[in-house]
C-alpha cells in the first residue's frame, strides 16, 4: 500500500487560515487608504500696487504739510492793490509703484470767506519754464499723467491783489490758499 502525500488537505487548511486572518483584519482594523496630496507647491502670491503722490520742491524735498515760500520781488512782500507775488517752484511726484493720472488745482481752505477773498485776489498756477511770467498760461486746474518715479514739470503759485481791492482789505491776513493734487491709478480717468 502506498501512502500519498496529503498536500491538498494542508492546502485547504492553509487557504482557510488565510481567509480567516483576512476576515479578522477586515472586521476590526482601521483602513489605511491609499492617498496622496499635492500640497504647498502651487498657489498664488500677490501684492497690490501702491498709489502715492507727493508735492516736492525743486531739490526733491517733500513739501507735504509745509507752506510754500513766496519769492519776493522786493524786500517788502506785503500785498497791495496791483501787486503780484509768486511762490517757490514745486513739482508733483509719483512716489508709488503704479502710474497715475493727476489733477493739480488751486485750493482754498474752508475757513476762508471765499466771496471776500475772490473780491480782492486772483490766484493761478504757472509753469516755471515759461520764461515770461506775465504772458504765461494761467492754470487753475491741470490734468496730467505721471509714470512711476517721475516728477511733473515745475510750477509755482501766483497771487495778485486786484487793482480794485479797496481799503477794507487793509491789514488783513489770509491763510489756507494753496494747491491740491488729486491722483488716481493710471487706467482710470480723473474727474
Amino acid at each position, binding site marked *: 500500500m502506498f501512502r500519498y502525500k496529503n498536500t491538498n488537505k494542508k492546502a485547504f487548511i492553509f487557504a482557510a487560515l488565510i481567509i480567516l486572518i483576512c476576515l479578522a483584519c477586515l472586521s476590526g482594523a482601521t483602513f489605511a487608504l491609499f492617498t496622496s496630496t499635492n500640497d504647498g507647491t502651487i498657489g*498664488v502670491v*500677490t501684492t497690490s500696487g501702491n498709489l502715492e503722490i507727493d508735492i516736492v520742491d525743486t531739490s526733491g524735498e517733500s513739501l507735504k504739510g509745509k507752506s510754500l515760500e513766496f519769492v519776493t520781488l522786493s524786500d517788502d512782500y506785503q500785498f497791495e492793490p496791483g501787486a503780484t507775488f509768486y511762490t517757490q517752484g514745486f513739482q508733483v511726484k509719483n512716489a508709488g509703484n503704479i502710474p497715475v493720472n493727476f489733477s493739480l488745482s488751486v485750493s482754498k481752505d474752508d475757513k476762508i470767506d471765499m466771496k471776500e477773498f475772490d473780491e480782492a485776489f486772483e490766484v493761478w498756477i504757472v509753469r516755471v519754464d515759461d520764461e515770461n511770467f506775465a504772458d504765461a498760461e494761467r492754470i487753475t486746474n491741470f490734468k496730467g499723467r505721471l509714470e512711476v518715479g517721475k516728477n511733473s514739470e515745475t510750477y509755482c503759485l501766483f497771487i495778485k491783489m486786484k487793482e480794485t481791492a479797496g481799503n477794507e482789505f487793509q491789514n488783513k491776513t489770509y491763510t489756507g490758499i494753496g494747491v491740491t493734487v488729486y491722483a488716481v491709478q493710471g487706467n482710470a480717468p480723473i474727474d
Partner: protein
Amino acid sequence: MKKRVLLSAIVTIALCLSLIAGSTFALFTSDDDIDITLNSGHVEITAGLTDPVLYSVQPDAAGEEFDENGKPYSYVQQPGNEFANGGTAAIDPATGYIVLERVTPGDKITFNLTGVNDSNVRVQYRYKFECVEGYDLMSGFVTTVEGNKYASMAAYTSEWHNLDENSNIGTDVNNGAGIPLAIELPVSAGNIYKDLSATLKLTVEVVQMNADTTDTDAAVVKYITTAQSATELADKLASDEILHIFVRNNIPDTVNVNFNLTDKTIDANGKSVHLSFTKDANGKPITLENVVVKNLNTKTINIATGVNGDLTVADSYFTSDTKLGSAGTNAFIAGRGDANDNLSMTVENCIFDAQGVIDYGVYFMNIANLTIRDCKINNTKSWAIQGNGTLGNFVISGNTFTGCNGILKGAIRGGAGTGSLSGNLTFANNKLVNCIKKESSTNSGNFVYMNLTPVNGTITFTNNIDNDVVITKEDMGMLG
C-alpha cells in the same frame, strides 16, 4: 471459498471503516507550484497652475468710468504679462506659484488648475484654494471658482470628483481643460487694499476611488469679514462660514464668547476689543480649537471656568493706568479655570505695559499648558506671570521683563505656599531688566524672582540674563 472472500471483504471493509473513523486519509494528491505576483496600486496626482490670462478695466472711448455699482465695467484682455497699470503676472518656475505684483483695482487674472491622475487606479480628488497669508488683501479680492464668484473668500474646498487613471483634472467640470479659477481686485476696492500682499495656496488631495467621502459632498466656502460691534463680532464668530474677522474700530462692549469655536482668527487691527470666554448658556464647557486673537490694543482678556482647547493671543498690546479688578483679576490676561479644564494657551509677541498699576501680566488659575514667548512685560505691580491651582507645563522663552516686581510665581489656590507644576518648566532666553525680587511666600526673608517649587517634571533653564549678566536658576529662586 466463499467464506474466505467474505472474510477478506469484511476485513477490508473493517479496515476502511477504522480508517474513516479515526485515521488520517492519505488521499490521491498532486501538487504544483504557482507563483503569484502582487502589485499594489499607487495613488498619485500631478497638478499645476496654467494658462494665466490678464485683464484690466479700461475706460471706454468716451472716457467714462465703469464700476460695479450700477454700471457694468469691461475687462480688457492685456497682452503679455502686464496689467494696465504695469503690474505683472508670472509663474515662478522654482515654486510653481503664480506671482502677481502691483495689482490695482480693476485687475483680474484667470488661470486653470490642471493636472493628471498619475495613479494606476481610479481615484477621487478634491482641491482646496485658500489664503494662508495676507487676509487684509484677500478680503478685497473676488475669487471665481468653477464660474462662481466669492467675495472675501478665505478658503474654498471643492467636492470630490472621480477621475480615471491617466485622466485630466477637470474632466467632469471643464472637459479636461482643468478647473477654471480667477482672482480680481474689483474697481470698487479702495485705498485700504493699497500696498499689501497675500499668499494663496492650492492643495489637491487624492484618495482611492472606493474611499468613503460622502461626509463632504458639496463645496465648502469660508469667508473673511469685518465686525463693528460686540454683538456682530460674537455672531460672526459663531458662524461656520467665517474663518477670519477683522475689526476696524474700537469695540467698547465686552464680546462674550460662550460657544465652541474652531479655526477662527480675530484680527483687531490695533483696535480695542474686550474678550470674555465662558461656559455656554447651559453651563456646559466650551472648546476652542485653533482660535487666534491678534493685533489687539486693549486692557484685558478674561477666561472663566469651563474653557478648553487651544487659544493663541498674538501681536497685541495691553495697557491700563487703572486697576482691572481685585486680587487675581487685576491682570491683563486673567484666566480662572477649573481643575478639570484642559486649556492650552499661547501668548506671543505681545507687550504688557502695567504702569506699576496692574498686578500681573498673565494670571492663570488651573491651566494645562501655558506658553509665553517673545513678549515684553513691563512694570507689573506684582509677579509678571502668576499661576495658581493645578498647573501643567510652562514654557517661558524669549521674553523681556522690565521693572517687574517678581517674574514667575505659582501658588496653591487659596494658600500662601509655593505652587508646583505637574509638568515641565522651560525658562529660556529671557532677559530681565531692572526687575525686583519679591519675598518668597514660603521662605520669609528670602527674596526671589521665581517662587515656584517644586516642578514635578523636567526643568530647562538656559540662557537667561539679568541686567546683562547671566543668571542661574538658583539666583532666580528656583531650588528644584
